[in-house]
């Protein structure tokens, strides 16, 4: 048996919306210093699972353990208090606000007392700059609007913010799907770094090519239930991809893949290798 207690564990969790069974029988363990990739096609139940993990939805039944202790979240702030931080794809940053103001949004450091109590922006600017430097993004001026950063850098600010405020579990909702190759790699590098720092990371994506390099384990969701969890040494990238699509569709998928490969071959034949 596993000696260490999982940072986060779900046992037979289900979520129903009226007569719709959005999730059923989900069991999953994530340890500190581990990246669990949650893979699934559209409609597989990824969003419902994240929202259940982050306290937006209350599970219909099943157990939810954080650091070995049972937990019940009724709001996102409950989950935040328990050290579970969720970074949503589009809803993380406010473009017109400065990096510092975004970084400390909702948790502004203050100094002074009574009517002179004010936000310590000098301290906040310094921390924002330092934290961004730690993840390899050199911010020239933390007062510049977040909108001036690239998409990947924005995701990184959101993740750095979660880490700085003591997250033990990071849930990343499709952090790379809206990004180009270069920007996605910025985020992936940071995910690897968060793992090295001992965080438990749940990385939601439908892109196997992003998941495979950083993942330690892969849970595949299909039509609201778990198709299984696999350690990285048990599966290859292609097997993960096949399982995402599902056994019954394997044959047609094979044909599709062959078609993709042919197209890839054509593409790389026509253009220069990127």
């Amino acid at each position, binding site marked *: 048996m596993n000696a260490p207690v999982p940072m986060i564990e779900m046992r037979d969790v289900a979520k129903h919306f009226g007569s719709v069974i959005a999730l059923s029988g989900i069991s999953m363990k994530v340890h500190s210093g581990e990246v669990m990739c949650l893979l699934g096609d559209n409609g597989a139940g990824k969003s419902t699972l994240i929202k259940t993990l982050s306290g937006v939805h209350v599970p219909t039944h099943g157990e939810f353990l954080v650091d070995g202790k049972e937990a019940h979240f009724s709001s996102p702030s409950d989950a935040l208090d328990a050290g579970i931080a969720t970074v949503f794809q589009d809803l993380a940053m406010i473009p017109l*606000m400065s990096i510092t103001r975004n970084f400390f*949004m909702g948790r502004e450091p*203050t100094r002074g007392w009574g009517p002179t109590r*004010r936000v310590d922006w000098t301290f906040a600017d310094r921390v924002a700059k*330092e934290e961004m430097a730690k993840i390899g993004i*050199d911010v*020239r001026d933390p007062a510049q*609007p977040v*909108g001036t950063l690239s998409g990947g850098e924005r995701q990184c600010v959101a993740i750095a913010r979660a880490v700085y405020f003591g997250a033990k579990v990071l849930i990343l909702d499709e952090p790379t799907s809206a990004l180009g190759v270069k920007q996605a790699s910025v985020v992936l590098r940071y995910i690897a770094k968060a793992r090295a720092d001992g965080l438990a990371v749940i990385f939601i994506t439908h892109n196997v090519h992003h998941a495979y390099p950083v993942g330690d384990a892969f849970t595949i969701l299909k039509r609201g239930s778990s198709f299984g969890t696999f350690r990285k040494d048990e599966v290859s990238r292609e097997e993960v991809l096949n399982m995402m699509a599902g056994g019954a569709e394997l044959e047609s998928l094979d044909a599709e893949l062959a078609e993709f490969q042919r197209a890839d071959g054509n593409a790389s034949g026509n253009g220069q290798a990127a």
Partner: protein
Amino acid sequence: MSTTASPTSQDKDERLAHVSPLKKALHRPEFGSVAGALLVIVFFALVASGTGMFSGAGVINFLEVSAQLGILAVAAALLMIGGEFDLSIGSMIGFAGMLIAIPAVQYGWPIWAALSFAFGCALAIGALNGWLVVKTGLPSFIVTLGFLFILRGVAIGIPRLMADRTQIGGVHDVIGNDWFAALFSGEVGEGFFLWLSEIGVIGTNFAGNPTVSGIPVSIVWWLGLTALATWVLLFTRFGNWIFACGGDKEAARNVGVPVNLVKIVLFMFTAFAACVFAALQVMDTGSADSIRGILKELEAIIAVVIGGALLTGGYGSAIGASFGALIFGMVQMGIFYTGVNTDWFQVFLGAMLLIAVLFNNYVRRKALEAK
């Protein structure tokens, strides 16, 4: 080879040196209105020189006009930065005026009680406005449009029902030496201006009194509220929450900002500002009138937009809104002093609004470009 600069260094980053001060100023939301106000001053200094517009009394005159609008504009600015509108503030002025005058004149309440009653009701209606907006998720435009008509209707209906008229006068007769009323009437710094006239800095009129006897209390309210709103926006947690709510309320909620509370408080603040406006007017004129404050909600929005706030929320400044109100007051009085037909004031106002919106759009685009 290390490519990252020392992160802990608080020294000026050498890559920032190239930004000229002008370009930096351009990125501030209030830039447009400050520049606009300077332009208007220069314009009237040339056109209206010798008309008395820039004499002591003339300055006080246009500042007073600016102050009345400015009080509303500052509150409307915070609300707009927070992502909402309040169209009911104009009607609130007429309504709150009645709430002061009717108890004081018809029922003989002491002025402080009538004022407290009016402020209490205004804050409650502001809270109701905000509560309806955050609970229903309806656009504040619609909710407060409803209150625009409700409050105006009540402000006309009640005095007509009780006294069969829409004007309640005689407030001056009942003020007495009320300490609360003193907050909304009279002038500040009379001794200082007397001294100024004695040493000859400002002139005296035929009766030997200084031409400027003091600063009207409305101007003090205006400056005070501007300073307070600026402090809140720039240096408090609540200020950061205002920006966050207007920028993206879901993102704000996700990180634990109490979005609903922030919005309700902002609606209460606009109602409060409208009530201050009403109190100043009732104390000044000694009467309340049902139709006071018509179109003030739109004038306030114009001042806020000239002040650099985005209609979509999340961006703007209280100082900008104050300068917007200053432009407003200067042009309104300037047109009077130069003898131009005042009909043209509205043309100017509309044109100013359009220019401001175009300029703001441009500034926002610039601000989001990689520097």
